[in-house]
């Protein structure tokens, strides 16, 4: 685990276009039965342009940033020795089908724990207009080399 990762900011991910059928598929997978997630008319009645993604859908976008972190040659992070310890989301608004989202990862903390470390990463997810949608924060427990 490389302590110099703290403060590192990664380039923004390529835009992710949120599809209506993807939202429906994800809603079904997390047992999100409320019609706002699957029925465009129900979402529009709440003032949204299209179906509303369940709150944890943001992880699908955040995951693109975690792939960047794992691919960083000097990160010292191997997926098979990594445990997802904590997850948080802070929303400005929900993700809606039709959104084109970009995520930018920064590493806000690395704390040594035994041979490994606890790594806090924040992905700031913004829409095509550059407005904040959600910040996704993950705490990963990364094991040290055997």
């Amino acid at each position, binding site marked *: 685990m490389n302590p110099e990762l703290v403060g590192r900011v990664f380039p923004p991910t390529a835009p992710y276009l949120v599809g209506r059928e993807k939202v429906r598929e994800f809603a079904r*997978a*997390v047992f999100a039965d409320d019609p706002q997630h699957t029925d465009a008319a129900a979402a529009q009645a709440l003032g949204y342009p299209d179906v509303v993604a369940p709150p944890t859908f943001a992880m699908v976008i955040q*995951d693109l940033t975690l792939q960047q972190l794992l691919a960083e040659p000097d990160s010292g992070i191997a997926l098979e020795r990594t445990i997802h310890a904590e997850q948080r*989301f802070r*929303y400005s608004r929900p993700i809606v089908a039709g959104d084109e989202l970009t995520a930018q990862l920064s590493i806000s903390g690395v704390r040594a724990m035994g041979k490994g470390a606890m790594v806090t990463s924040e992905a700031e997810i913004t829409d095509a207009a550059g407005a904040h949608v959600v910040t996704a924060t993950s705490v990963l427990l990364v094991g040290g080399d055997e």
Partner: protein
Amino acid sequence: MSALEVGEVVAERSVSLTRESLVRYAGASGDFNPIHYRDDVAARVGLPGVLAHGMLTMGLAVETLVPWLGDSGRILEYGVRFTRPVVVDAEEGAIVHVVAKVAVVQEDAARIDLTVTSGETTVLGKAQVRIRL
């Protein structure tokens, strides 16, 4: 919503997970870690069995609140700690039970705490949702 009382249970449900649920979540989320569908891999890395994705448990837990909230856009923040895994047996599956209780009420926001259990085990820690009132 103005009459929320601390300690009040606002929503509750049980969700029955099977191996099919895990495969479905893998496909929907893109998380294809084999510990969530292969007994041989789970055993090799020393797990008690095939586990539900932590993000599946986190995702289904917060959805318990959405019909009560009416608009999921009222969720301002949501966080959890993944304290214990949900083991999903190939034949029996697993039941995840969620209770949502009012913890803090402020002028324009409230904190709802989720108690998420599987059998006797609490599987998420500090599962807290801040909502707009």
